């Protein structure tokens, strides 16, 4: 008799005691978590060095399912929490994993300032184009004309083009994929781990329950077909040209990969320049435990 090994290879990265998860059938967030776990396996990164910080929303729940030091913070504030965590313990690899509404609306100010400072954070932004946890309201990312519960006659506001926003603010690594591009997404996450500085990966992901259904865009499978047919890989595409529409082309790829000194390098250089020998490295004294 052959006993099949049915253990999913990503299981060691998940809190299996927390399953089943809360995400709807056809939701793309689970797919992104799978890609994230695969990226961890492939990058052979020390799991103990990882900390994952989420905000509030459907993607905010990722923190509860990964077997890492994980923080489910307040709405919009994952990035500043992660900033404190990273500054207090620079050895940590800090990932911010949250949704488009959390990161770019209520947390938008923190997003641009963290990119400006070039804090060494890896931000994974699952963009389902809507506020899903609260029932499908308009987000800053909702494309024009889309129907939401708070824009029942169609969204009239222009949407944020997130890669363009974070590039302008100073991110060193910017990529976008859809949940159809699982291999590419995992590779991008792996690349972001190699970068020192503010890295931002946008993942376009379906919300069949609220966004797709209300806009008559089909189910999860239909959305995968849409992603497959309408996505165009354009590495290095000018981010000003990658804005999204409701049914149009989705430009994906790695848009930005550049080097700028990160916040802690700048801080260190500035202090050494100004204080010389009287500067005491923070890492030497931080943990004041018993």
């Amino acid at each position: 008799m052959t006993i099949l090994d049915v253990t999913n290879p990503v299981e060691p990265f998940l809190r299996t005691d927390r399953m089943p998860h809360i995400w709807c059938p056809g939701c793309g967030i689970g797919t992104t978590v799978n890609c994230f776990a695969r990226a961890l396996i492939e990058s052979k990164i020390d799991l103990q060095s990882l900390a994952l910080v989420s905000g509030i929303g459907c993607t905010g729940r990722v923190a509860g399912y990964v077997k890492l030091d994980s923080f489910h913070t307040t709405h919009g504030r994952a990035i500043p929490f992660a900033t404190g965590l990273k500054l207090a313990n620079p050895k940590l690899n800090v990932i911010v994993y949250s949704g488009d509404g959390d990161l770019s609306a209520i947390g938008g100010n923190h997003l641009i300032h963290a990119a400006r400072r070039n804090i060494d954070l890896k931000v994974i932004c699952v963009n389902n184009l809507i506020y899903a946890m609260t029932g499908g309201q308009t987000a800053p990312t909702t494309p024009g004309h889309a129907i939401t519960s708070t824009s029942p006659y169609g969204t009239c506001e222009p949407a944020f083009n997130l890669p363009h926003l974070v590039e302008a603010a100073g991110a060193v690594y910017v990529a976008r994929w859809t949940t159809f591009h699982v291999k590419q997404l995992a590779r991008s996450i792996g690349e972001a781990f190699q970068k020192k500085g503010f890295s931002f990966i946008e993942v376009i992901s379906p919300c069949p329950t609220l966004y797709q259904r209300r806009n008559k865009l089909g189910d999860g499978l239909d959305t995968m077909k849409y992603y497959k047919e309408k996505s165009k890989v354009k590495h290095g595409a000018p981010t000003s040209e990658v804005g999204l529409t409701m049914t149009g082309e989705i430009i994906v790829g790695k848009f930005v990969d550049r080097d700028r000194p990160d916040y802690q390098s700048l801080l260190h250089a500035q202090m050494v320049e100004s204080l010389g020998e009287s500067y005491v490295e923070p890492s030497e004294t931080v943990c004041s435990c018993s």
Partner: protein
Amino acid sequence: MKADPRGVLTGTHFLDGDHACCEGALAAGARFAAGYPITPSTEVVERFASRVPKVGGTFIQMEDELAASITLQGAVWGGAKAFTVTSGPGFSLMMEHIGYAAMTETPCVFVDVQRGGPSTGLPTLPAQADMMQARWGSHGDYEIIALCPNSPQECFDLTIQAFNFSEEFRVPVMFMMDEVVGHMTEKVIIPPADQIEVVPRRHTRKAVEDYLPYGTNGDGVPEMAHAGEGYKFHVTGLTHDEHGYPNMTPATQDKLVRRLQNKIHDAIDRITLLEEECFDSEDVVVVSYGITSRVAQRAIEMARERGLKVGKLRLITCWPFPEKRIRELAATTKAFVVPELNLGQMVREVERAANGKARTFAVPHAGGSVHRPEDILKVIVEASR
């Protein structure tokens, strides 16, 4: 545990309350602060920004108070002792994160140098009108500790106490200064490090497999682990069980919220710090805190010179409210007189605790200055009739 000498500026100084507060934080072991400039509290972080790179720590000026008040909590989970400092509108913006710190049991200190409000109010002038906000400002049921210094020396001493309470009980501590105390300069004695008692973090010594992030050992306060140590714990602002996992049932909610409350209530005698001059069946006891306690002291002396029997109760710990002592005094005194730089906040607590056994007189002041001692005296005279 004794203070780390690197952070302690031992000696006799002439400092204002804001600067003394910063020195207290450094002596207590704070090595991280996140802030956003706002009058009249900015001097605290200005000094910290100048001092901490030479002590081994970090200051970051964030984009707003929402950020500052959560960045410091990230730093705490990264292993640092951390605080933030604000005033007026900034304190209002921090409310959500006071609740987050209470819920996640993140030890930290929020310094509020109170100025006149509401809204932008009087940026450069004093008030004590954030007292109820400090207690009730975040949504839901929770407990905090609030301390009120009345001199630069106390800004130093009690900041250390604030950090110690925060670590001991894993609770956010509100350090409720006011503009006068923050900006007044007096002698401040900073003792040698080996004379400063510092409460270390309740860091777990348990093996990874035995560690329950929100399990307690009977005293209601769980042990903490830091990110990066291999515990792979989860922290959430959602109602959570002992594993730290979300568990949104009435039973878990009841257990958690009651524990958050009881860990403070059960230790109230230890947390309550009072300065008292009550001898024997005073006619009137003046209850005050912060800068007003000094003005009240003058009024008390004036009243005693007139032969009135007046006692003094100064609240150093304002929250949890020391209602037991008020209850006891209510049995032997005719009246309480409560001057404060607001239109009646802590006086409600005094009245509630007195429960009709003694009369309660407010001496309200809308802020912008301090009381005239004569105004307090007038009410003392009226109350002792």
